[in-house]
């Protein structure tokens, strides 16, 4: 509430110096890529030899970006929808009830967040191969559900806990049957939380690399995986068009993030519920 | 779960560092265009118990935090026995403070909470032990010394907060509405506790509250604040008998503030009328007698509920009202009545009244205070 003037002591200067150093290097890292994507050739020196936008169009065609973007958004929205569908009811039950075995269920939902994606991705990929789902859109969506559902649960449960249970009781006292209580009272209150959780899953799935990498095929790659493959595939691919693709990826991600930040605060992007 | 309070058997005295006076010269605090505290002067003598009284937003907490050093002053100075202390940060002023939500360190036991200030001063362990034990005995928390604050009840936490502030034997103890989070019975007990500690050990105290009963019962002197300005400073008796404005009167239990017009002024009394009400009251509000009330001027009349009497017929300076809500309070009735023109009056009377009764109310002129209507009407 009160705005304090920033007091500048030697310690503060050091802290700000570190922050500024970090920022400068960030700008350098991002700048190199962006500049390169607009450059003709750049083998040494401070700047590229010339500038062009052709890298973007060549990247779009070369890497079939139109199709990749479509697939990416399909996958992402399917994951968001399914994880909300499966995760929100579960969070409601977890928030409202204390039952034997609750801790086991909470553990079940936290493990995919703690275990490295490669570690469970490899067995998962093996299983998907067994069921002939690997390489298809379904397989990728299923794989991405694994970290997304827990994420929804851990974001929504504290949110629901904050909604006074007496609201539901009051609705019942007014004679509302269960479906009305859920539909007219709970659902509207849940919407902001669901929106936040959905957006966070969207951003994370868009950027999720390992799982999609392990389970996708040529027609079901997301943008980030295509980018990686482009970097590593054989043949002469000009670095500039890859940079252009990377910039397109980051640009899309930034747009998503900006939209997300209008609805959620930055801490929720990374944290599950505070202990 | 009231906690019974008994005096400790052998109180070991805490020698509070006495000072002779703390002067606040024109201290004020403004945030940009908004002034939270207008220039405010006060001189506190060593050993006094001063209460800052007022509703929320009146600037009392701002004043307290400024004196503690937690807020910088935008103007003015604070001197302790002639030495300027407003330039010092809070850790160097050496004042003890009890916060509204106690601010007990949740990860430290009661004992370590109380010992904290002494450890910061790097006092020898033996002395710390002894002083902590003395104070814990004083607030009767010796059996709970090893517990964490989260394991204590509200009243117990409050006592820890007080113990932590006084163990340092500070020249001044600042208290920010310490009783407001307690339930009614506990509040009364803790009030007595605070009074006892002050009486036995004489630590100068500055106490912020919005509860006039608390302020009246604890303080040697009261400062009533309104919107950042001082409304009146005085002893409880002075404020109770001679409030200087309708605002202060309202705080001191004059629940009825009627906006009327003076019909005639006769020396120290005035006849006031309006809205089918006719009263004779005493002019109040200015010591020099120039109360600013003349025939025809708008006034505010302050009357305590217990000073309204039910009159028989034919009494002069009376008016009529219809009882609306009657509350039974054992030995008397608290009545909310409406005059014919819709003014609400609060009356306390030992006579049996029922809702709907027609009442004729009168008041002794000495018990009705007439103030000139000022800009700061509540």
């Amino acid at each position: 509430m009160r705005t304090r003037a920033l007091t500048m002591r030697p310690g503060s200067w050091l802290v700000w110096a570190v922050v500024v150093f970090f920022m400068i290097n960030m700008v350098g890292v991002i700048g190199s890529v962006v500049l390169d994507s607009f450059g003709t050739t750049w083998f040494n020196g401070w700047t590229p030899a010339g500038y062009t936008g052709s890298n973007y169009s060549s990247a779009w065609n070369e890497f079939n970006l139109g199709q990749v973007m479509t697939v990416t958004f399909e996958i992402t929205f399917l994951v968001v929808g399914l994880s909300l569908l499966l995760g929100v009811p579960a969070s409601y039950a977890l928030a409202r009830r204390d039952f034997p075995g609750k801790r086991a269920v909470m553990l079940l939902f936290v493990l995919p967040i703690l275990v490295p994606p490669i570690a469970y991705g490899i067995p998962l990929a093996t299983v998907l191969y067994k069921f002939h789902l690997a390489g298809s859109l379904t397989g990728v969506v299923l794989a991405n559900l694994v970290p997304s559902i827990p994420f929804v649960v851990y974001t929504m449960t504290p949110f629901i806990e904050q909604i006074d249970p007496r609201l539901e009781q009051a609705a019942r006292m007014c004679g509302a049957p269960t479906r009305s209580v859920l539909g007219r009272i709970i659902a509207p209150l849940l919407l902001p939380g669901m929106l936040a959780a959905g957006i966070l899953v969207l951003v994370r799935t868009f950027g999720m690399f390992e799982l999609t990498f392990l389970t996708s095929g040529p027609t079901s790659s997301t943008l980030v995986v295509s980018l990686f493959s482009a970097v590593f595939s054989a043949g002469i691919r000009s670095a500039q068009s890859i940079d252009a693709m990377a910039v397109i990826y980051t640009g899309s991600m930034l747009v998503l993030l900006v939209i997300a930040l209008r609805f959620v605060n930055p801490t929720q992007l990374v944290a599950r519920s505070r202990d | 779960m009231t906690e019974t309070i008994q005096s400790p058997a052998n109180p070991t005295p805490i020698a509070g560092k006495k000072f002779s006076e703390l002067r606040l010269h024109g201290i004020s605090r403004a945030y940009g265009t908004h002034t939270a505290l207008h220039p405010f002067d006060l001189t506190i003598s060593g050993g006094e118990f001063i209460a800052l009284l007022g509703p929320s937003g009146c600037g009392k907490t701002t004043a307290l935090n400024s004196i503690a050093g937690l807020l910088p002053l935008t103007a003015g100075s604070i001197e302790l026995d002639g030495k300027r202390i407003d330039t010092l940060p809070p850790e160097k002023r050496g004042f003890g403070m009890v916060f509204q939500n106690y601010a007990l360190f949740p990860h430290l036991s009661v004992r370590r909470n109380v010992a904290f200030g002494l450890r910061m001063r790097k006092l020898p362990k033996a002395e710390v032990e002894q002083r902590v034990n003395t104070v814990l005995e004083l607030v009767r928390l010796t059996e709970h010394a090893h517990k964490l604050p989260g394991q204590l009840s509200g009243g117990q936490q409050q006592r820890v907060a007080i113990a932590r502030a006084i163990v340092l034997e500070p020249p001044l103890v600042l208290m920010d509405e310490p009783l407001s989070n307690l339930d009614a019975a506990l509040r009364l007990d803790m009030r007595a506790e605070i009074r006892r500690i002050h009486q036995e050990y004489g630590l100068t105290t500055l106490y912020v509250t919005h509860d006039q009963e608390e302020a009246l019962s604890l303080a040697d002197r009261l400062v009533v604040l309104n919107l950042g300005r001082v409304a009146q400073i005085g002893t409880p008796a002075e404020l109770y008998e001679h409030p200087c404005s309708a605002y202060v009167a309202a705080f001191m239990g004059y629940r009825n503030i009627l906006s009327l017009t003076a019909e005639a002024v006769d020396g120290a009394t005035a006849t006031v009328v309006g809205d089918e009400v006719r009263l004779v009251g005493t002019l109040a509000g200015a010591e020099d007698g120039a109360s600013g009330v003349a025939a025809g001027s708008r006034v505010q009349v302050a009357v305590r509920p217990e000073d309204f009497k039910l009159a028989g017929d034919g009494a002069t300076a009376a008016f009529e009202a219809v009882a609306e809500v009657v509350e039974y309070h054992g030995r008397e009735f608290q009545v909310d009545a409406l005059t014919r023109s819709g003014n609400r009056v609060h009356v306390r009377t030992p006579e049996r009244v029922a809702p709907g009764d027609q009442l004729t109310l009168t008041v002794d002129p000495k018990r009705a205070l007439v103030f000139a209507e000022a800009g700061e009407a509540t």
Partner: protein
Amino acid sequence: MSAISLSPKPESATAPGPTKPALRHRLAERGVDRTLLLILPGVIAMAALFCYPFIYGLGVSLQPAKGGVLGAYKSFFTDSFSEGTIWKTFSLAIPSSIINVGLSVPISYRMRGEFRGKRLLLTLLVVPITLGTVLTAEGILEYFGPVGWFNLTLQKLGLVSAGHPLTLINDYWGVLFSLIISGFPFAFLLTHSYLSGIHPALEKAAATLGAGWWQRFRFVTFPLLLPGLLTTFSLTFVLGFSVFPSAMMVGDPDGKTHVISIETYEQALQNFNYPQGCADAMIMTAMMLAVIGLVMGVRSLFYAGSAGGGKG
């Protein structure tokens, strides 16, 4: 654990006798009622998509081509190349976590309270999360490369001689930078949120008791922050330990940054040695859980309750 027994509709009280309602009520008191049905879809999904593959993978890992049941595990630990991945992974994960958490403390401390531009600064610090591993990797390759701006600047400042630029890419350092760039915002946001959970009145109280800024930090803020820091460390460690694409792109995947995730991937999807790959995944998981368990165990030694200020 009692079995979940669900009566069809509570409204149809066609049940005879007192026993049926009693059981339903007894169960309801323990928190078991129809609401639990809501949990089933999620649990089933997790069981099918996480537990089953994991157990299946465990089974596969115990059926290697040779060496008996534990053959794949033995061969991991006996092969110095694969065993070396453990050290390489830890040597990336631990320093990066320490740096990330360590830097986040003074910076969040400085950014407490409200000030103009705070939202902007927070957003700027969070932006690196959006970049994605590939752009970060490309950026690091170019910026920190032998002819990139970083080395050019160092040469201009005379810190490095012209023919000998610093080798920062295709090396340990590139991966470390990548982990710091992606990990720091995450650690910072978590630390910032934990720090904000400490009631400011606690520090004010400490100040009135005579504590200077360092003493306030050491005796009040830090002890209350430590449990949160340990949690942040665990989560940051998970990120570092799982490092995969950056180790390949910016590091030296066959040498110095041949981390355990790369080893696992190569065994499973390049060598098609599924038992070995799954065994490696199990080992990876076990180590990760061991470290987290250790850190959380240490955390439980400290006061980790509410730091809200102790209202009655």
